[in-house]
């Protein structure tokens, strides 16, 4: 067990990811305010993206923009570009989801005049 904790302490960004993911998850599921739920959702999505970006890191490597135009490329000197591509797509998906969810929130507010989930459920009945 102690070994495991030591292993985790060597990846502080993983611990940050876990904290953000769980906290956001909790807010997203249990908070009663719709906008707060979306803030939780935003944090969950960014934390997953954070996890993906952390995969790409290589010790002592630089950004994946090639320095010299010609000549062979040493792959170990550049960070892994594929997770960056995945995260770019995931960020776009995130902002698209945010747009749709905010549109739903605005439509719900127009109909029920509140952002409190329990209030809305009361008015539904």
């Amino acid at each position, binding site marked *: 067990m102690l070994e495991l904790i030591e292993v985790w302490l060597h990846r502080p960004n993983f611990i940050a990811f876990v904290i953000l993911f769980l906290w956001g998850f909790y807010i997203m599921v249990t908070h009663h305010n719709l906008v707060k739920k979306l803030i939780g959702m935003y944090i969950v999505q960014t934390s997953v993206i954070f996890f993906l970006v952390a995969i790409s890191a290589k010790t002592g490597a*630089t950004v994946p*923009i090639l320095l010299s135009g010609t000549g062979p490329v040493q792959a170990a000197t550049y960070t892994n570009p594929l997770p960056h591509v995945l995260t770019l797509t995931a960020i776009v998906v995130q902002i698209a989801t945010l747009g749709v969810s905010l*549109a739903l929130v*605005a439509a719900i507010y127009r109909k029920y005049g509140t952002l409190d989930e329990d209030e809305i459920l009361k008015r539904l009945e």
Partner: protein
Amino acid sequence: MTFSFEIPLLILLILTAGGAILVKDLVPAVFILGSYSFFLALVWAWLGAPDVAFVEAVVGAGLATVFFLLTLFETAPKDTRLHRPPPPLAALIGLPLLGFLLLYAASDLPNFGDPASPASVHISPVYLENSMHDTLTPNVVTSVLMDYRAFDTLIETVVIFTAGIACVLLLRRNQA
């Protein structure tokens, strides 16, 4: 590997996330969320992902904040409830389980920054080595995004198009 630069950033990250979650007034919460995005972009730049950091700074700190604010202007800017009910039992059981699963699964991941990890040696070197020869594009992220995996990018663009159409469908009742 030293963490002297990273640790303070990560602490700031969690603090700003906590601020966005805990602040009752929603407009400040959204601004704090914007600063959270900004710190996230810094961390990513530090991790060697300038493209992702750039997008996060523009989209997360900029666009998302604008979307949130526009919605809040049209709706209620405050979380008026004072007392919060106790957390449901399912969350109390489920979250620790999920956290345990996350940590359990991570214990077999390759070390952080390991240049010999499968992700670093299997496919990605092909992109790095051939990008210049295949596409004349020095920014490998762009060449993977727009050529090697261009189809994903097409669908990504479709996602944002879908979101635009969905907002029109949900919110604009009078004009097409």
